[in-house]
């Protein structure tokens, strides 16, 4: 290890510029981490999803649904079979979303992808399995297998939980947690004084 760092270390004459340049790069990295609120993606807080404003309809509709009391975004939209899969899926989906948002490629009406559908369906079952294994129902629902387990829940429960009007313009006036200013208060105060 020591030998390796010895080999990687710049010749003594270059040491100062290298220290400064790597300081700049590291500083930019932390700044990007801070401004994009990347740290928030490790949490389960629904307002994290509002880092991209186009998620406002999804947030607002969830926030007015009964699911608000029990489930956050991740409870339904990332897998929960094991912790590695959870973060793998979250990273994969999140990076795709971030790419689309950054390139301004978002469609006006967002549809869930096939993979996401399976995740959501599994999560419906994770909490609501009782509804599928009710013996009373099994005894009189002849098409049990087809009706109760092959179709996605939202084929019937269409309003749950995001409602039926689906467009990124559907809730223009909803009060949702928008990203505040990244500029710290002390800097603002300082700038005001300068003026």
């Amino acid at each position, binding site marked *: 290890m020591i030998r390796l760092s010895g080999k990687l270390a710049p010749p003594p004459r270059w040491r100062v510029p290298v220290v400064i340049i790597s300081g700049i790069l*590291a500083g930019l990295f*932390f*700044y990007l981490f*801070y401004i994009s609120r990347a740290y928030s993606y490790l949490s389960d807080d629904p307002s994290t999803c509002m880092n991209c404003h186009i998620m406002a309809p999804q947030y607002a509709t969830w926030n007015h649904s009964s699911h608000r009391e029990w489930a956050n975004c991740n409870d339904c939209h990332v897998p929960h079979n094991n912790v590695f899969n959870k973060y793998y899926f979250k990273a994969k989906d999140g990076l795709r979303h971030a790419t689309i948002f950054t390139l301004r490629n978002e469609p006006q*009406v967002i549809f869930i992808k096939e993979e996401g559908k399976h995740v959501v369906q599994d999560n419906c079952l994770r909490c609501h399995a009782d509804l599928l294994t009710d013996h009373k129902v099994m005894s009189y629902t002849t098409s049990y297998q087809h009706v109760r387990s092959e179709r996605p829940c939202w084929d019937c429960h269409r309003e749950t939980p995001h409602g039926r009007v*689906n*467009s990124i313009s559907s809730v223009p006036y909803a009060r949702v947690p928008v990203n505040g200013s990244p500029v710290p208060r002390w800097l603002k105060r300082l700038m005001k004084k300068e003026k």
Partner: protein
Amino acid sequence: MKPISTQIKRKPWLGWMIFFGTIVVVFVLGLLASSILERRSEAAFAFTPQIQYSGLEPRNEIWGKNFPMQYQSYKKTSDTLFQSKYNGSATIDMLEVDPRLVVLWAGYGFSKDYNQGRGHSYAITDVRNTLRTGAPMEGEKSPMPNTCWACKSPDVPRLMNEVGVAEFYKGSWETKGHEVVNSIGCSDCHDANTMELRISRPALVEAFDRMGKDITKASHQEMRSLVCAQCHVEYYFNKNIEEGVPYLTFPWDNGFSAENMEDYYDQIEFSDWTHKLSKAPMLKAQHPGYETYMTGVHAARGVSCADCHMPFMSEGGQKYTDHHVQSPLNNVANSCQVCHRQETERLMQDVYERQDRIIGNRDKLEELLVRCHVEAKLAWDLGASDEQMSEILMDIRHAQWRWDYAAASHGGSFHSPVEISRVISTGIVTAQEGRIKLSRLLMKKGYTGEVPYPDISSKEKAQAFIGLDVKTLQSEKEVFLHSVVPGWEEKASARESGYPVRSLFD
């Protein structure tokens, strides 16, 4: 002092100090940049009017300076590339597609020329180009009155405000050619001061008044259809309101249905023209788009015209209405799929299936109507009397009115498939009733064979069949467009250059 690199060699913590110091400096510089960008973007996000103009400003590009997103999307109405199965945004020569129309409208302007119109931004060009407005040059008058401008331009509310409503309608079409030059746009639907939707055409307000309704009580969602209903409706020219003025009137007093309006026209004994072959007192349905739409399921659920034809958009977190007014079939994602979660192909199929089924019966009715006119002409030729013909002619009038009510409602077969099917089926019954009476009469006159169906397989053949010389009309039109229209444009731009427009940044 020793060079700094030697100092670091002795005291490695100094290197780390420089490293972390740089991180902090860069980070704070980043925050400063954020703050600067925030201040800059405030200006871009807020509504920033650039200019001030009068409440009657007819030029869309002037409004566009203050509302760039809406104006940019409006400009797309000049796109003519989209074609759906039956319609689209391109010019379609409907007489070419369906030459039977020539016979149905024999003796009326529509037999000369009838095109599927293009987007709003072509309104002026297309009304100048159509053969129906004629070639009014050298003292010659257009066969159409100024009323025909009523739906074409934001110059219309401006003029009505200047000269009065009846005075606007008065006179032949060419007399206001230099006044009406801007295509359908902003001030047709918007109040210049508040940008609220507004009704700029008196005909709709008057129709509401006669029905005992107050249009000023309409909700915003209703207004998102009513602004369209200023023009996309059935209308006629009432000559009894003011002496010598073809006053634009909606025949809604008894209701919106084909039968209601038919009753209305029968009561006042109105006819648009007398048919050249059958001599029936005909009615021309214009485009009862709003009336038929109101009988459909989307209207019943409170969906407005704009919800599908001008869906909401979000760009950069700002919501606005797409002013590219067009067929939702060219924009299924933003219109249909907001509520319907099916695939685009499936949704298009739903539309086409309804259109296909309805056009089958409409075609049949059209053929029956051609036969009606031809058979009635034969009856006249064989010496039938007015009395013998009067009932038959009323049947022809009613049957063709119902066909036209369905055909001219354009989107009707999707907006309200059940109602349109019903109207067509009553049209078929009425046409056949008339033909039964006709065959009795023909037999009385000694004619027992089948009356031959004319060869009208092309527009040219059909126009020759009704004795119409289109070639002359076309060449006169060509001369008119090159000699008269440029003068109109010149006069208009001289007048417009005097309109008050003030920059807010001078």
